[in-house]
């Protein structure tokens, strides 16, 4: 568990060539009021793949990411994870038997832009509480597991600190450790470095890079284009609620889509 972030086996896992499909979004629609923000997006994520989603503000990136674990319930569309259907289902198609959001979220970890640590708990208990609540671990076991997770992000000495006593970078690392402690099959990152001071971005990206090297399946919404270029096996450019262009590792150098090319040029 705590060894998870210590592997250096990058080459074997980073290509996402493993055929097993972990996550499949099909024709996902979402409106807020009368404003449709997702116009039927598709996304297929294979085991070990590192997906980078980018695009201008308001393009629906975060909404798409948040619909994966149903924090945003789509109006319609299929969300299939490990072969089980969780979403509201496709238009005009017979409804399959679907899993509960609670089950889905036990396979899917998420890291937020604003960290969302629990401010009334220590770093250690931010991790121990979900372990107790979802895995029914004893207090002692949950604390030991939490300590191991903190150690793997280099924060064990801060185990007794409260979020308000930690820097933004440290808080985000605790948040990542918290999500990883539940052994997710796939990790979602919603602009994980956007709320950080520039000098703190590096430490969070370092943790994410190590996680990527271990073969964790990741879906990352980010504006960090250099990081995206580095880890992205599947790069998804979104605009106005549509997936406009996708590509593999050479996407940033040989971008087939003119609009995406201009966006990359403007942020790189």
């Amino acid at each position, binding site marked *: 568990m705590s060894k998870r972030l210590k592997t250096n086996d990058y080459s074997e896992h980073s290509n996402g060539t493993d055929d097993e499909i972990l996550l499949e979004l099909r024709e996902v629609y979402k409106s807020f009021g009368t404003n449709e923000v997702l116009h039927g997006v598709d996304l297929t994520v294979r085991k070990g793949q590192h997906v980078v989603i980018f695009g201008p503000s308001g393009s629906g990136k975060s909404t798409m990411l948040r619909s994966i*674990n149903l*924090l945003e319930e789509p109006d319609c569309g299929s969300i299939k994870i490990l072969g089980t259907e969780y979403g509201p289902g496709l238009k005009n198609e017979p409804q399959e038997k679907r899993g509960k*959001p*609670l089950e889905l*979220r*036990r396979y*899917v*970890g*998420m890291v*937020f832009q*604003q960290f*969302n*640590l*629990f*401010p*009334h708990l*220590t770093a*250690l208990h931010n991790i121990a*509480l*979900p372990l107790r*609540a*979802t895995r029914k671990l004893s207090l002692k076991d949950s*604390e*030991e597991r939490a*300590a191991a997770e903190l*150690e793997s992000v280099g924060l*064990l*000495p801060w*185990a*007794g*600190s*409260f*979020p*308000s*006593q930690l820097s933004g970078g440290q808080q985000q690392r605790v*948040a990542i450790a*918290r*999500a990883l402690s*539940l052994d997710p099959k796939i990790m979602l990152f919603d602009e994980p470095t956007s709320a950080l001071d520039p000098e703190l971005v590096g430490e969070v990206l370092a943790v994410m890079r190590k996680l990527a090297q271990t073969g964790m399946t990741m879906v990352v919404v980010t504006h960090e284009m250099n990081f995206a270029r580095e880890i992205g096996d599947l790069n998804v450019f979104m605009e106005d609620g549509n997936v406009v262009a996708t590509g593999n590792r050479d996407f940033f150098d040989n971008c087939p889509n003119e609009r995406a090319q201009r966006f990359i040029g403007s942020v790189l």
Partner: protein
Amino acid sequence: MNTAGVNFNWGLIWENRAILLKGLGTAIVVSITALVLSLAIGLVLALARMSSKRIISLLATTYVNIFRGIPALVSVIWVYFGWSLLFGYNFTVFEAGVIALTLLYSAFFCEIYRAALVAVPKGQREAGLALGITRLRIFRSVIIPQATKIAIPNIGSMYIGMVKDTSTFAVIGLVEVVRVTQNLNSVNFQPFVLYTAAAVLYVVLAFIVDYIFRAIEKNLSSPPSGSLAKVLSKRQNERIMALIGKSSK
């Protein structure tokens, strides 16, 4: 002492200290019982008011607006004599006092809790959901502790109000501070001295309540501070230090 031909017998207070303090004790027991009940009912009302079901929210809102507006004196007479007349059920004076206070203050606590629950950032619930924690557990372990911290100063002020409102229960014969004062005065005819004593008792209690609630508030801050926190988080801190130490060896 002699002012304008009136004798003030301050010694009376000391002579009757036991019975005055017993009256204060009664006021405290009634108000604390009502506090516990009002907090529980107030929380339920707050959730009802925030319910997406309009009828439930409307019922809670109506309750709050009615009982927030009734004076304690009216409430206790209504409970004590009204129920007896209407339903033939006689509450003891203690029960009537507790019920009267609970009816009023659960309405206030509803509003305090509602404001506090709204003030907990939305991301807290989302983080809990994303971690696969059930809604009930998120509410209990994530939302309520944070809302309580926000609500505590207001709960403290309200509790001082509850203690003061017990003074009106003298009318139904609850032997609290004012009733004791009235009884002593009817024998000694020293209203100024005796009511001064009553006032001092309420004020001293208000200071003590303020101190206690501030200690609780400090303990709920992140990180907890104050001596209460030191005692309460001692074992947790020891466990954390042990875990940190274990790995560095």
